[in-house]
């Protein structure tokens, strides 16, 4: 296994794209071949829309606000923007969306962000600290809890840091592989969950999939990132694939779509 070349911070050519742009592009590419994707607020929103314009042109976007088959003409700041309705296949009530589309088993991928994640892909988006007296009160579940249970698989996109990739999450908002793959598979079967849980975590440093034990494994590292950076921004000793790949850099077209079409104000790509 060869260690990727460390980033040369002063070299201008390594600044051709930002870490966030690499993360968004890598996440979008993971959606190749998928059919129906439930889109979360924030980073998932831009990644999924980039996928629709590149690797997954027939991707059906589902927004929890009630749009199915959305074709947004601009990147919505919120997931309830009017642009997701105009030209959509269907605008439905949230009851229909959650009951028939999600719980009915029609969603292939639930795409989520998170404040904290552990090695088994369990997610916290509720509080930092104690629930009754939180240090930081986060937004909470929204639809994430039922998406994690009912979407056929879950993709996660989030930046890595010691505060977000933690040994123990403070609150389990959305279940991942629980304490390991074996227990998770048994419980999912016994309780009749439709989803098989998290399958991809894309960060600003690399791409993780889950190994047989249900733990995150770094399978690809982004160009410019180093294993030292990965270890410094994760709260446990991460598993690394024997044949660690280097993520192909964003193409000119991917960068153009992000900068000119999806995020002209630079809200997501900084």
């Amino acid at each position: 296994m060869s260690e990727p070349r460390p980033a040369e911070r002063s070299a201008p050519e390594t600044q051709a794209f930002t870490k966030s742009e690499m993360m968004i592009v890598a996440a979008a590419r993971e959606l190749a071949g998928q059919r129906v994707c439930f889109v979360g607020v924030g980073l998932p929103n831009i990644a999924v829309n980039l996928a629709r314009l590149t690797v997954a042109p027939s991707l059906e976007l589902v927004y929890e606000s009630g749009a199915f088959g959305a074709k947004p003409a601009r990147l919505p700041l919120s997931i309830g923007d009017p642009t997701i309705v105009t030209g959509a296949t269907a605008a439905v009530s949230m009851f229909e969306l959650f009951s028939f589309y999600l719980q009915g088993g029609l969603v292939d991928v639930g795409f989520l962000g998170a404040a904290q994640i552990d090695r088994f892909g369990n997610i916290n988006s509720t509080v930092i600290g104690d629930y009754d007296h939180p240090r930081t009160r986060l937004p909470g579940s929204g639809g994430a809890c039922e998406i994690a249970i009912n979407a056929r698989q879950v993709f996660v996109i989030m930046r890595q840091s010691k505060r977000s990739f933690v040994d123990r999450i403070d609150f389990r908002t959305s279940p991942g592989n629980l304490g390991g793959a074996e227990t998770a598979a048994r419980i999912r079967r016994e309780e009749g969950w439709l989803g098989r849980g998290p399958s991809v975590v894309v960060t600003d440093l690399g791409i993780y999939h889950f190994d047989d034990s249900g733990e995150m494994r770094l399978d690809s590292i982004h160009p410019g990132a180093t294993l030292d950076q990965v270890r410094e921004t994760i709260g446990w000793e991460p598993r690394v694939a024997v044949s660690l790949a280097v993520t192909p850099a964003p193409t000119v077209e991917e960068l153009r779509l992000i900068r000119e079409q999806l995020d002209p104000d630079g809200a997501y790509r900084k």
Partner: protein
Amino acid sequence: MSKVTSMRDAVAEVVHDGDVVAIEGFTHLICFAAGHEIIRQRKRDLTLARLTPDLIYDQMVAAGTARKLVFSWLGNPGVGGLHAIRRRVEDDDPAPLELEEYSHFGMVGRYTAGASNLPFFPLRSYFETDLPKANPLIRPIKSPYGDETVYAVPPLKPDVTVVHAQRADAEGNTQMWGLLGCQKEAAFAAKRVIVVVEELVDEAVIRADPNRTVIPGLIVDAVVVEPWGAHPSYVQGGYDRDNHFYRDWDAISREAASTQAWLDEWVYGVSGRAEYIEKLGPERLASLRPSGAAPSGSVDYGIYR
């Protein structure tokens, strides 16, 4: 019988101190005009229910109208946190705020059970999460037809639900299009309903397109005609979400003093929505108009005698 009234009279007569109030609308059609009138009338001890408390409940909490929030996602979408609510929750500043927390599907289910007169709503969610510990009203329940266990949430029956919509007739027969959220469920679940519309239309307009009627006048207590009543939320086909204001609120609400100064100027300092809109100015309003029209095709219902 016409139920058309002013926002001032509707809120004075329909909303009482201590009520459970739901101003629904998911991103779309959030009736800020009603929320501001509730603030101006200094209603107190309200329990505020909404999937996403949004800026409207951040403002109502900052103004001291609420003692409790019932919700499922507590943030400013795409921007960050709701600071007035966070001050109450994290620092008890100026007083604690009680929280009752669900997921989106849980809240939708609660309104559905409330509207259908059922004792609970069953759903496949909450398994192996900490939410049932945080909120003991979320409970596991065994299927009467097999070994399966699902979770149940209790019905939510607001004392008052406020619904914003594109149009209604004088009796309150209400039509809307775009994202429907759970406005229908929240209205049918409520004891009293205020409908606020951009446009009052003749009954014939409603009857020409019955599939678009979401709320029948049968369950409506008051109809208020309030153009731009949803700003900074939006109305599909009417005006865009004022995303600049959603971003601005992040700075305004960081400190209690700047939050109060904003309320003084934009809520207490105006007599009602008309004055608020005048204060926003024609340029701001023009910038929020859709960039073009996208009319639906019309359908033929046919005549059958």
